[in-house]
């Protein structure tokens, strides 16, 4: 609880918008164009009351310098990011992953018999469970140590993801047979079955914090779909470098259909699949990166 008169109708000036935009960019990688100013002003106004400041300039100062600002940043992660997602999203890419990428990875990882897939920016977890279902169905990894790790900047999203209980909007493109096979219907929603849940792990992570990302270890594939589009070029570059660092040689990176590494990184090579293009960390580049 925090008394105070709060934001009221105090306007967000162009200069304060720029300062806040930079702060969000530095901390979260977010790229906010000037057209987002009205929406940002609306969304942040109630936060002024929560942290008991009266102007956006003071709010910026609070975020930048106050020792207690971490809690406020947590709230902002929820406020400023999009959590809209659903199961089996962009099915052509998932088909390519299942039919062409997974056999490739099974071959590459056959000696270690361990497969790790990272869904970076997994929101409420639908993608993580979808990937686990695809791996399960491929039958290529029986007896392997399979882990699908989902990370998101929002603690709330990770909480939802861990529960693995979804409502109708998460099933907008899910084939009926998959829903029957992988979910148990209960009054509070559709629960992911245990054999799939057991493959999935979640953690809160800011993709710009490299040290924390290193805790994941090496991975065979990274899904990062519709995340980089919200990032500024610096954050995009840093995130792609992070993926490159975390991937095994020959590991693949799958981006959203409107995203590409053009102008971001030349460290990946393009892998042409029948239905999709994915990026692969080259296998034999001694001395590079």
């Amino acid at each position: 609880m925090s008394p105070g008169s709060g934001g009221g109708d105090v306007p967000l000036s162009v200069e304060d918008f720029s300062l806040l935009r930079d702060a969000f960019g530095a901390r979260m990688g977010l790229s906010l164009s000037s057209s987002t100013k009205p929406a940002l002003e609306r969304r942040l106004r109630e936060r002024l009351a929560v942290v008991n400041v009266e102007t956006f300039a003071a709010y910026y100062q609070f975020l930048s310098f106050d020792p207690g600002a971490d809690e406020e940043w947590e709230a902002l992660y929820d406020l400023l990011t999009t959590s809209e997602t659903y199961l089996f999203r962009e099915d052509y890419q998932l088909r390519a992953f299942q039919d062409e990428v997974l056999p490739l990875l099974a071959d590459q990882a056959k000696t270690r018999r361990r497969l790790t897939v990272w869904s970076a920016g997994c929101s409420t977890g639908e993608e993580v469970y979808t990937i686990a279902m695809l791996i399960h169905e491929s039958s290529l990894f029986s007896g392997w140590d399979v882990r699908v790790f989902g990370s998101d900047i929002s603690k709330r999203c990770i909480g939802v993801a861990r529960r693995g209980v979804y409502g109708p909007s998460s099933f907008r493109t899910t084939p009926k047979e998959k829903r029957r096979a992988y979910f148990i219907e209960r009054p509070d929603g559709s629960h992911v079955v245990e054999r799939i849940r057991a493959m999935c792990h979640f953690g809160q992570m800011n993709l710009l914090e490299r040290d924390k990302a290193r805790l994941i270890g090496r991975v065979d594939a990274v899904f990062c779909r519709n995340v980089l589009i919200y990032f500024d070029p610096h954050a995009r570059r840093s995130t792609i470098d992070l993926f490159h660092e975390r991937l095994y040689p020959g590991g693949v990176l799958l981006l959203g259909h409107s995203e590409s590494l053009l102008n971001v990184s030349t460290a990946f090579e393009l892998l042409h699949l029948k239905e999709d293009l994915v990026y692969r960390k080259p296998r034999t580049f001694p001395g590079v990166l």
Partner: protein
Amino acid sequence: MTSDVRGPAALLHELDPEARRRGVQQLGEANGPEAIDWVLVALGDVDWRVRKEAATVAASIEPRATVIERLLGALREQTNVGLRNAAVEALIAIGTDSVPGAIRGLVELDADGRKLAVEVLGGVPDLAGTRALTRALVDEDANVRAAAAEALGTAGRAGSEAHGLAISALTSALSTADPLGRLAALQSLTQLEADLAWEIFEPLTRDPLLRRHAIRAAGRTHDVKAVAALARAIGDRSVAVARDALAALIDCLGAAADKEELARVARREIRAMPHVEERIRAFAHSIDDSRLRGAALVALGLLRVRSDVPELVRGLSDEDVAARAELALRWFGQDAVSSLLEEGRKAAAPLRAATLSLVPLLTEGADGGALEALREALRATDSDVLTAAIQGLAVAGDGADLAAVAAHATNADARVSATACAALTTIASRHPGPSRALAETIPPDSPAAVVGCLLRGASLRPGALAAGAQPDRTESADIAFFRGALDHGDVHVRRAAVDGLAAIGGPTAAGVVAAALADEEHDVVLAAVRAMGRIGQAEPLVALLEGGHAAAVVAAALRALGEASPSRAFDAAWPLLRSDDPLLASAAVETIGQQRGARREQGLFLALDHRDPDVVKSALVELSRDMSQRTLERVGACLDCASYEVRRFAAELLGATEDPGARALVRARLDREADPVVREALAQALGARSTRGGAT
């Protein structure tokens, strides 16, 4: 071969493209004719990664004049398309220095080369380049003409004069017989956001090839005739045309000054064509195309048919179209409220909250049904719903709502409690009588003491005084209450008590606040520091500045002293400008920025040399409030700062001025800036004038 290029050249012979790319990268550290030769080789490499790296490296290699000549020569290349395209990319990366050569190329090169020269000019914002592009609109080759029309779409980046020139030339190109050129001209006019008369586009809508594009461009035409035509075009046999017409119509209404009149015309036209209405409803269900769905929802809002409200409410829960659905409901207005609330009651918590938050925006004054719905929602348990209901009551509620809202002032959810506290203050300032009555029922040691503090504090605000509150009679009672509340165990109560005392002011209140400076809670101390500033008590603040307190307290004291005694604050702030702690340095910048006189500028200039980018940006904000010629130059110097954030910020500030000197500084930096984020800001700074200049 010199030793500088021997290593990179060897790598360029490797089979592995990554090795060749690294070779090119290393060429960037060598200069001279040999390095240029090898960069040219790399520009023609079979692998795109190598070519891309070479285009970047070419922009940094010296002597630049030789590089440009060689790159222009590459535009004559007939077989290696990769080389030609990479040369274009390199010339664009070089910037303004490429322009004279590219203009010459428009005369000297063959048609293919001229098209490439046009691409270069399109990529570099430059007035002379724009002039050359307008001339290329009458080139003998159709492809060159079309490319020139396309390239002019970015002319706004070269300033208002270039923007105006481009619009004028492209408008003329619309009346030529060249279909490809007219198509490109239409697209560029859309890109330039040209506000042209509907009469210019109207004939083009009859051309099957141009119809869609003309309709798109007409979205900027705020004309009754255009609106009527676009509304009719939603009924076009071609669904693609209908989609574009709907989007253009909504754009047209969105940007118009006389929205109501245009909306009335659009409504009348659409209602006269039932098949158009039905098509809009069908578009509103197109889940695969959120732009179309959003436009259709806005159109439904315009039509104001109650049976469409459920669809608009569904739109609120779809993040892709939520803003459009909200706009639609605003267009719909008060008539949507009852259906909106009905749908909200049936919906899940987030959607219910969204519907409630719209109520105050759609109702004028206190609508009975709406008020009832907001009051009912106060019984909800979901934080989103509660917050929305409390916010609604802050606007529409009255004295009777105070107690119910007050019940949430101690809610465990910080967002709910903060919203409730803010709402109490707002309602109390409108209804001081009931507010006072409620406040007097609350003792200072009760769990609800925070409500007592807020309501008593609110009754002392100017709004409440205007509404009839009588402070004199109650001042001593209030001070006694706040004194008691300062002993409360809840930190929030103590903080609210300090704020209340600040609202009373005067030496008695200041004496009570002084005790709170020793509070064990940081938040209360900071509130007390701020209160001292508001009450005008300089001495205790100066003591705090000298007492070796925590940085946050010193920063707050400095800001408060700025309110209590500006001259003393100025002197106290000066030494802190160089503090290593960015919190202190920023507070000093802010304090000095609020003063007047020559030393203000001097102090802020000093802060521009601070090593923390946040401090530098704070100084830039203060300097931007009063841009003298000297200030402009210092802000311009920040374009060379190591921090890209500072460079971007400086570019934005310079872009907001009308000074030609600022423009020159931005232009000069654009030519050598490598960071894409800063480049974009610089380009926008140059383009910003085109909008304000009103050259169209």
